[in-house]
């Protein structure tokens, strides 16, 4: 017989809001990192904040761990279920609740797919600026949880700069309505703190987001290089010369080959060692001026050709190629390990070259495509998960790349989050006190650590705070 609490949950979310048969649960075993798998006991698909709240209250009473899930496109194992836990999917919460073209804000349910908001806003001459390459699939709630970026976040800023309010459900079912957009927070900045908390503070059910006016003019430059080093140097030069395009992206040769052989074929020259894609936006004069200043800089680094897209169609093609790059790489190998690290923009060439060396030493196939303007690298390693030795080498390479970035003054992740994947690496970058502080903040939101447990903060750091709190210094 079904447990009473499951029957209660069924009553809250309805028959179509619950998944409990093994075949369908299989679809929720992993996110974008297929190496990390765990079958959940149950998946819930609520439709409203109220349903989420009632479901969480029941799970609170039963002390069952919860993992929120958007589209499952995450690349750090953030949405990987936990054993004996419930997955709470936002996939059925995808309504636009309010779109105010005057104040340029939208209120949406958290399961709305990123691109759908820009589509809804388009008729008002507005768009939602953060544009992860996965925007055709990923949810805005997932973007909030990861503080996602995208090519055009170079100019517009990552997700956190676009979140004006949230409706949150805490682990015990408490609903916090922080949806009214505020110029500055009243009291502590709970909304700002929640963004990027990787599903560990609660469930975001509704989001108040900033919409941006479409630029009057956009130009896209494609620069072709005979070496990846030179493309990296060109980007460092652009930053050094204080240029402000709206996106600066690099694709290397292997990525170009994959894209050109796929449905995303963008017309990148297959013989190039690297292409640099630069968007410039603003008023007509601003754009003209920038293009005129940027072009010679890029040429000076040895670009063999710099091309300005002639039509809107060509522009879209060039960007479809970039955004389809990860998908296209499916052709190179069955699986792709997408690393995501950050370095200062003065260190691009050095670090990118070093990642290539690491892959060569480990006999791995590396394709690089990244948000160069932000110093956010994606060394992507093609592999086959059935080959245990290759998997081992991939993970080793991932670790070495993170160490390399830390040594260069960089960090573990620029947009995909720590999740499960980078958990051990947190101790390489942060001290015990740093991690213990994160743990305390987390416990203010979720005292029993039932929301997405075992992610982001290495367990040890939390246990140590518990002990420290039990024996305050002034009592010993």
């Amino acid at each position, binding site marked *: 017989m079904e447990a009473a609490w499951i029957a209660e949950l069924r009553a809250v979310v309805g028959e179509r809001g619950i998944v409990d048969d093994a075949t369908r649960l299989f679809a929720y075993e992993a996110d974008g990192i297929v190496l990390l798998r765990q079958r959940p006991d149950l998946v819930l698909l609520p439709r409203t904040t109220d349903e989420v709240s009632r479901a969480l209250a029941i799970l609170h009473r039963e002390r069952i761990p919860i993992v929120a899930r958007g589209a499952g496109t995450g690349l750090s194992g953030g949405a990987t279920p936990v054993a004996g836990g419930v997955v709470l999917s936002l996939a059925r919460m995808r309504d636009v609740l309010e779109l105010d073209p005057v104040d340029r804000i939208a209120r949406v349910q958290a399961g709305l797919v990123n691109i759908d908001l820009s589509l809804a806003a388009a008729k008002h001459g507005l768009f939602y600026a953060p544009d992860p390459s996965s925007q055709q699939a990923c949810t805005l709630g997932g973007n909030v949880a990861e503080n996602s970026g995208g090519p055009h976040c170079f100019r517009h800023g990552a997700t956190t*700069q676009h979140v004006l309010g949230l409706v949150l459900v805490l682990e015990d079912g408490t609903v916090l309505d922080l949806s009214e957009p505020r110029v500055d927070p*009243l009291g502590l900045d709970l909304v700002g703190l929640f963004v990027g908390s990787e599903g560990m503070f609660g469930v975001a059910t509704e989001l108040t987001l900033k919409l941006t006016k479409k630029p009057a003019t956009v130009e896209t430059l494609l620069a072709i290089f005979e070496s990846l080093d030179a493309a990296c140097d060109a980007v*460092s030069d652009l930053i050094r010369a*204080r240029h402000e395009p709206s996106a600066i992206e690099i694709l290397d040769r292997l990525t170009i080959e994959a894209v050109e052989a796929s449905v995303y074929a963008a017309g990148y020259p297959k013989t190039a060692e690297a292409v640099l894609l630069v968007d410039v936006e603003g008023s007509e004069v601003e754009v003209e001026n920038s293009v005129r200043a940027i072009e010679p800089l890029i040429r000076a680094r040895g670009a063999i050709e710099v091309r300005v897209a002639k039509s809107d169609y060509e522009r879209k093609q060039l960007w479809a190629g970039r955004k389809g790059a990860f998908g296209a790489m499916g052709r190179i190998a069955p699986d792709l390990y997408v690393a995501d690290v950050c370095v200062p923009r003065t260190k691009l060439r050095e670090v990118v070259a070093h990642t290539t060396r690491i892959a060569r030493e480990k006999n791995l196939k590396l394709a690089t495509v990244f948000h160069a303007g932000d*110093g956010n690298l994606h060394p992507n390693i093609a592999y086959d998960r059935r080959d245990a030795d290759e998997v081992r080498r991939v993970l080793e390479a991932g670790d070495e790349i993170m160490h390399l970035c830390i040594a260069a003054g960089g960090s573990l992740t620029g947009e995909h989050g*720590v999740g499960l994947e980078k958990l051990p690496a947190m101790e390489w970058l*942060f001290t015990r006190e740093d991690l213990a502080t994160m743990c305390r903040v987390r416990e203010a*939101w979720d005292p029993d650590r039932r929301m997405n447990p075992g992610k*982001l903060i290495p367990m040890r750091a939390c246990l140590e705070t518990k002990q420290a709190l039990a024996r305050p210094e002034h009592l010993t």
Partner: protein
Amino acid sequence: MSATKEHLAVELASRVVGALRVHPRGAELPLVVPRTLEELVEAVRAAHRDRLSLVPLGSGSKLAWTRAPASADLLLSVRELTGIVAHEPDDGTISVRAGTTIADLRAKARAGGHWCTPDVPNPSRATLGGTLSLGLSGADRTRLGPVRNHVLGMKVVLADGAIAKSGGRLVKNVTGYDLHRLYTGSHGTLAVIVEAALRLFPFPESEAWFEREHSRFDAALATALAASELPMRWLSLSLARTENRWRVRARLAGKTAVVAHEVGVARALLGEPLGRDARAAELADAHRDADATTKPRFARIACRPSRIADVARTLELERGENAVTVEPTIATFAVELSNDARTVAARRPALHALGASLHLVAPDSDVEPFDAVGPELALMRRLKDKLDPDGTFARGRFVGGL
């Protein structure tokens, strides 16, 4: 002298450099000014051990922006923890100690070819630590958005003296929780900010400063909103009442050729610029340093942009002669208070009905400065209790008694 105070005297005597009032009508408290991070840690640890409560501050210029603490034993200033920790002009980032003044910070950034936000009033007095604690954005918010968007990382000293950092010095980074968001605007209730890293912006090659005068607020607002729709990104755009006239003030900044073109476009609406380049910057600085937020007592009101006219009516802005500064694209008002704090506070319900918020700076002691916080206050209290269980950072100064 009580035993604790005596202890304090022994422990911290070498660093106590005077006394300050935490509130215009409050008592004077000893002011501790550590010269190094180690000294600061030691002072916080001593206070924690002896169950003293302290108020962290920068230069102390904005103590009246919060309430007087429920009780406090000392003030702790970061003003001597100054200097640049790291400056990477070619990467566009800077990391400085919290006592560094905004003026010094901006000068350093400028030497590297950068503009540093926030462009707050009286920058040679304001410290970065104090500014970030209050979450203050500057006149450049029109273009750059709130300061919290540009804080890349922080180092803080927690209530027990532990040093903890979050973020880093990178323009993009999501490693760990954004605790610097939590500390920004926390009014010194959670930790002492001792270091922060900021993102920098290109220093403009050229500038232009416009002013257009109106006798009525509505007309000035219409001009300002029309200016905001022009095809240019204003660095700052405000309207202010001075000498009974409403003045729209707008600042262009950017590449020389672009600014030259934009001046041509803006002329039809705003007339000839009152100043170009260095002169424009001088005018901007002078008006910034005299705006309504520099008055000893004022009200800060914020709303949705579409509600500006309604809020202005509710505040009866047309009447009176007090200083007013409005930033129309951000939708904030700063209104100087004379003896009318109670009258303004009485308008709170009407403002709330418009979705607006109200914060009174240095009102009479029986007037509540902050709006009431909803059920989320419980969560804020839990955050306070987790990070500062003993109340080492004096309680009662911020919303809901935090």
